[in-house]
């Protein structure tokens, strides 16, 4: 009996454990530490239409119990992904591949979604709406409900693949945004992306990151992630992919109980490259010890009605 078997947005997964976009390259980078096919799904680095060099200067800063990154979506572009990377991973990664897609305008999102549509290996799309919307004065797509709804709708119209909309936590009301992307056809929501933060080099009297600001991730953000997942999972009917600081089996259980149907591991893998395996084994053990036939039974267990 596989107690971890999970169906998420129509995909049959061995388990509810995925990788967080941007923390697992394109799937093979950690293969010396564990077999990526042990994962429920592999979410790859955020892609854009054109290749991007990302931000200049220092891009990583450690913070207490967390880290900041300002890689700025460095990626080889959708062409390279389609023509080179999918070939490199072909046969080597049999777990479903999910691409994380990004644009500067709704048109760019639509364009890249169309490109992904024809890539067989890709089983679902994670729509990252945390990026600044250049047409909207640089405020993130995910910051305004109408805009979040519009981009979701536009992408849904051009793809048959399930669309998981990845929400930014840097908002006053994440529930409102989750609801509107649900209304506009999202198959699931993923949360949380990074919290906007910064760090200062007191010797140089300058921000540590070349880009000044960066995204905060890791254990430090866990309580915020759990709160948002708990709120959103009660407000929408679509499933939630939970992430933000998971670094142990107990953390994973907390996220499931908060209402995440599946989880993504990011910074936790940097801290411990075999974390996905440890969580997989830990969840199995938890099910056996607690007489649980399937891990999905604990999803949302901490909700008030349970």
């Amino acid at each position: 009996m596989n107690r971890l078997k999970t169906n998420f947005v129509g995909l049959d997964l061995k388990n509810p454990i995925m990788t967080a976009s941007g923390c697992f390259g394109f799937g093979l980078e950690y293969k010396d530490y564990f077999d990526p096919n042990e994962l429920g799904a592999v979410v790859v680095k955020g892609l854009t239409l054109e290749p991007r060099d990302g931000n200049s200067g220092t891009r990583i800063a450690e913070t207490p119990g967390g880290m900041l990154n300002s890689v700025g979506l460095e990626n080889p572009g959708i062409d390279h992904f389609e023509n080179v990377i999918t070939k490199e991973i072909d046969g080597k990664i049999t777990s479903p591949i999910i691409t994380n897609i990004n644009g500067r305008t709704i048109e760019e999102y639509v364009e890249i979604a169309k490109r992904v549509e024809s890539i067989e290996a890709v089983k679902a799309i994670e729509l990252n709406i945390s990026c600044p919307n250049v047409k909207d004065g640089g405020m993130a797509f995910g910051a305004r409900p109408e805009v979040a709804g519009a981009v979701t709708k536009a992408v849904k119209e051009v793809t048959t693949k399930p669309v998981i909309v990845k929400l930014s936590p840097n908002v006053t009301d994440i529930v409102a945004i989750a609801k509107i992307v649900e209304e506009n056809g999202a198959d699931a929501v993923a949360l949380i992306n990074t919290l906007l933060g910064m760090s200062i080099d007191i010797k140089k009297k300058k921000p540590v990151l070349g880009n000044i600001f960066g995204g905060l991730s890791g254990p430090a953000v866990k309580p915020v992630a759990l709160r948002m997942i708990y709120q959103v999972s009660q407000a929408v009917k679509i499933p939630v992919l939970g992430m933000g600081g998971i670094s142990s089996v107990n953390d994973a259980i907390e996220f499931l109980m908060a209402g995440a149907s599946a989880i993504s591991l990011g910074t936790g893998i940097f801290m411990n490259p075999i974390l996905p395996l440890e969580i997989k084994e830990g969840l199995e053990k938890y099910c056996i010890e607690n007489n649980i036939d399937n891990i999905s039974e604990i999803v949302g267990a901490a909700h008030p009605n349970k």
Partner: protein
Amino acid sequence: MFLEDGVIIENKNMGDNYYLMKVKAVKSAVAAKAGQFYMIKCHNGIRILGRPISIHYADQENHMLEFYYEVIGEGTKEFTNYKIGEEIRLQGPLGTGFDTELKGKKILVVGGGMGMAPLKYLVESVKNKNTVTIIAAGRDVGAVRIADNYHFPKEDIVFATDDGTVGLKGNAVDAMKELLSKEKYDIVYTCGPHKMMEAVARVASEHNMRCQISLEEKMACGVKACVGCSIKTKEGMKRVCADGPVFEAEVIVDVNPKENTGCSCGK
């Protein structure tokens, strides 16, 4: 690449803020190559990222690795408290090290301060089949004391210090130019402050010598999964943790010098 729990067998101060740590770690000691590094996990969980530390020396027979480190911030400060017998988690060996597949060459090794850390094992890996000359440069006598730990006759090492407390009063490039006025070399390996390496690379290029340099960047994953350590090179974006830390100088030096994409090494 793998994870291994090594056991500390020595961890001592080498003067000033410099420390030598010896670790028993069977797989790691055997797998290590010159110029590669390990990410060492801090015990204090408030520091979540591994600290990249070069392989100073690897004793394959005795399954022992040496790390030579300088106290910079809280992480390396924490290292100094580790006791003999304590375990440390090593992730590695990581990255692309120096080209050590040379034979019958005249090799010049130019180290500056802590940049000399990876060069000990480089020298060990090439000295039997090649002729090696070492320049050990630094601020003062303390900064070059690391050379005492090399398995290399001290009198054959060319020292250069800014304050003249040992060897030539001057920097690595001064020493290099002096050597080049007398001798020819086939290849230069260098590690140290970024400005020094750039200057060394320029001199090497003027003399039509191949030059390998070893870079530093802040790292999160160490395995090219996060692109945090990416830098712009003449061959496009490269990850210091995997494509480097050792690069051919020509692909690095003079890349868009106005953009601060080179190296985080602020020394």
